[in-house]
């Protein structure tokens, strides 16, 4: 009687207990450890500086937290202003392919005797105009009731290998577009 035997066998099988408790204690232990770790290393940033792939920033012992400003990102290959790539550097023919090759500007990118970067100057002027327009529309006023003056801060985020020659041209260009204070960004050096 195979049919009856099957029913008997099924009845004799051990049933799982109705209440199945998941052991959460060990999970809770892990969560507490993770939470304490996160609280210990927690750091909040009040700015929204973005970065680009492949950039290697230098480290600094400075403790000044940069407030939000317009920023220029300089990689060994190009220049980015407010997330828009505006300049691509070139390698000189003699140095192309060499490990010590130096990237530089195209002659057409510069004016004023090779000191000013044309594309960056145009972008900075546009940004300044936009900022002044926003200040004009804003309700924030100074003591005399006039719109707040343009501050002219420019954050510079550069790869650690970028030469001063390039940074100097950017600073000069920014100054001609009325950005008179430069904010050099670096990664915080953990002591």
């Amino acid at each position, binding site marked *: 009687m195979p049919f009856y035997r099957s029913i008997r066998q099924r009845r004799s099988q051990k049933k799982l207990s109705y209440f199945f408790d998941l052991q959460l204690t060990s999970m*809770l232990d892990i*969560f507490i450890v993770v939470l304490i770790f996160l609280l210990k290393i927690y750091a909040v940033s009040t700015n929204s500086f973005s970065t680009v792939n492949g950039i290697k920033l230098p480290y600094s012992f400075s403790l*000044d937290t*940069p407030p939000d400003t317009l920023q220029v990102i300089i990689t060994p290959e190009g220049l980015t202003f407010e997330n828009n790539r505006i300049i691509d550097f070139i390698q000189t023919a003699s140095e192309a392919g060499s490990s010590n090759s130096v990237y530089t500007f195209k002659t057409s990118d510069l004016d004023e005797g090779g000191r000013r970067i044309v594309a960056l100057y145009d972008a900075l002027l546009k940004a300044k105009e936009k900022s002044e327009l926003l200040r004009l529309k804003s309700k924030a006023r100074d003591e005399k009731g006039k719109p707040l003056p343009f501050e002219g801060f420019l954050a510079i*985020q550069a790869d650690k290998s970028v030469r001063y020659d390039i940074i*100097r041209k950017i*600073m*000069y260009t920014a100054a001609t577009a009325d950005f008179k*204070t430069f904010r050099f960004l670096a990664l915080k050096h953990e002591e």
Partner: protein
Amino acid sequence: MFKRPSSRKRKPRHQIFLNLVPIIDTMVVLIGFLLFTMAFLVLVSMDSPFPTINPQDIAKKLLEKPLQLTVTLRESEVEIWSPFQKITPKKIPNIMPGQPDIKSIHNTLVEVKQKFPAENKIVLVPFAGTNYETIIAVMDGMRLLEKIDPVFFAKNPRNGIDEQIRFLFPEVIFGNLLGDS
């Protein structure tokens, strides 16, 4: 005579389970919030103004002859000097070509600060090939005081009280932005 023990069976104790689910819910929310709002790369900054050229300032400078402490970076050495000969110029050889000896620069500047505690400005003149990492390292050495450095005091012009100085030369100005060197 002792009383006879009860023959009634003891009831089994009910095991109490703490309900950990809401605690875990809170933990998950907290961890998610912390991970979402955390800055993994902490950025710091160093401000530097563009040098302004004003004929009146130049005339005033020539009269007053300020310290105008200048640090000139070269491929093989660093020179610390003053255009008005307020200090004895000092040349510090680089550790490697293009890599200045930051510690020696810092120590020399600390000596200068001891003579001119109220001075805050310093002019940095890097050469064209100086990389950004070196500029940041030199600026750190020029701006910040270390724990082992001597303590400096200067009179606060607002209230006339001597206050401890926290920075060495915090106002770094680039000296050759208009030049070609």
